[in-house]
């Protein structure tokens, strides 16, 4: 909890007045701040809440009035969701999102933690130079890889299944994962690892029983970051998922938009189906999520 509190809590700079009149004066002095923050909160909530309300309104109501006029007379329907899930096939896309995201998270998690262990606790020649190459690869735009990797996958037919998207997501997650986890692994106490070596533990058991258990916060932050990255991705799926029935939700919604540009009841419901998992992750794992994003600022 400490990191979240450090990042999301207030400073204790001001001394709170103890008398009643002192408190009233302070509250009055802060009125402009409260008003400004109120406006900030409205601007950052209204667009999303508007779409959420719209997703539960019947089509005829959406065409007639704005969502802000419906707050008192909301006619609630789940029809938009059932229509988008079944008729528009978003249920299948939701499943595809899971099929794409889970291996595309677990695979880089495993490979990056192993490589990070090598970069922090195994000696080999040019280790630090190779690590600088990994840091440089962080900035390589995915577009640079698309043509040769497509050349590689297409004859094998991998873009017709999920293998292509799993592999490219894994590869492009590695530089960041190795960077993040290596920087965490080197902070582990050297004595602990040396002691385990002297007790006869090999690298595999040191990795499994000491390094990984002690690094759960960093690994979790990376895992959540990567999961949401893949879940929310459009570009990689656009290029590497070439079979309609394998489309994730981002592609399905993009198709909905180009087919029914103003059918807001479908678009709103579709957008919320896409948002629901990230929002659940955000509210339940906010601590790791914020850590992952802050660390991910180099990606």
């Amino acid at each position, binding site marked *: 909890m400490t990191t979240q509190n450090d990042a999301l809590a*207030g*400073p204790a700079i001001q001394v709170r007045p103890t008398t009643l009149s002192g408190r009233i004066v302070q509250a009055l002095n802060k009125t402009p701040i409260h008003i400004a923050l109120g406006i900030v909160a409205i601007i950052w909530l209204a667009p999303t809440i508007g779409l959420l309300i719209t997703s539960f309104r019947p089509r005829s109501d959406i065409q007639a009035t704005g969502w802000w006029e419906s707050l008192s007379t909301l006619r609630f329907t789940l029809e938009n969701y059932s229509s988008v899930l079944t008729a528009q096939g978003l249920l299948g896309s939701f499943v595809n999102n899971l099929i794409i995201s889970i291996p595309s998270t677990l695979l880089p998690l495993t490979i990056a933690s192993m490589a990070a262990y090598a970069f922090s606790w*195994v000696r080999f020649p040019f280790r630090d130079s190779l690590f600088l190459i990994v840091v440089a690869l962080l900035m390589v735009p995915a577009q640079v890889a698309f043509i040769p990797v497509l050349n590689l996958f297409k004859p094998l037919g991998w873009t017709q299944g999920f293998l292509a998207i799993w592999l490219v997501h894994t*590869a492009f997650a590695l530089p960041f994962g190795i960077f993040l986890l290596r920087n965490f692994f080197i902070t582990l106490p050297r004595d602990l690892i040396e002691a385990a070596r002297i007790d006869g533990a090999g690298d595999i058991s040191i990795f499994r029983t000491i390094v990984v258990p002690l690094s759960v916060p960093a690994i979790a932050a990376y895992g959540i970051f990567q999961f949401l990255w893949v879940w929310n*991705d*459009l570009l990689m799926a656009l290029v590497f998922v070439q079979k309609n029935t394998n489309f994730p939700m981002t592609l399905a919604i993009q198709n909905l938009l180009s087919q029914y540009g103003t059918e807001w009841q479908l678009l709103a419901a579709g957008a919320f189906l896409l*948002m629901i998992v*990230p929002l659940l992750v955000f509210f339940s794992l906010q601590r790791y999520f914020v850590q992952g994003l802050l660390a991910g600022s180099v990606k």
Partner: protein
Amino acid sequence: MGLEPLGLAKEGAALSKGGRKPKNVSAERTNWPAALIFAAPAAIFLIVFLVYPTIYTIGLAFNRGRQGQFTQWVGLDNFTQLFTNDKNFIDFSTFPPSGAIWNNILWIIFYTGFVLALGLLVATLASRVRYESLIKAIVFLPMAIAATALAVIWKFVYAPEAQTGLLNAILGVAHVGPVSWLGNPAFVNAALIGAGVWASVGFATVIMSAALKGIPAEILESARTEGANERQIFFRIILPMVSLPMSVLAVTLIVNVIKLFDLIFVMTNGGPGTSSRVIAFTFYQDGLSIGQFGKAAAVAVVMLIVLIPVMIFNIRRFRQAAVV
């Protein structure tokens, strides 16, 4: 499991060495089996999917590149075509210029500027109130959402009909509009940048907030007792002390802009016409999706070149951190 015996053999070697020499020396020796087991999977992935493709694409940028293969060497032709003959990429003949590159420059100036300014503002204001973490959670929320969903949210806000679009409804109260925000080349980039700013301010707020908390309270206190007003404190103390995290943040935001694709693709598909295209969009629309692989490779190389200073900046920063 199959790897265990290898590990055990290595332990034995490490132990016998440890018996003769100080333990840190034994750790300095190359441990080939462990290095291979732990680093090889990552190395294979990085070489096959990043290093080799980067070299291939750089070569392809100087080639006609039919079918994505090396068919015909064309020298700098792809680049000169892009910069002198493709008005959708960059057009200097008008003022202001237009095209994808120009739109990226607009994004860099206005998106980065507004995100930094609003992030610092919200972080400063929020630090004065007790519900700070709530405000930060609210502005941070869009960070969790897919660009595709953000695009739907903002397309809805910008809807040209005043009974659907929130923005036009608000303007309608003042008898302005309705305006077709995404359908008018004069407004579309401002509207898209607005959505982008909205999506990223929370990220800047959380980073700036952490930076503000790093300023020792005693410095602010002593400035106040010496009679400095709030404006002086902000410009003479706070701003200089958060300039480093702010510059790192600015670099991150600029990288976001160079890679920007999803939001544009879903919200406007580069339109109306070609007026909201960005460089990554050109790569996809004019290159990859229509089989112009030489051109696509050239655009990708332009993206890479723009990002190389950031690469060097990161390596320098990392090396400094490693020395300290």
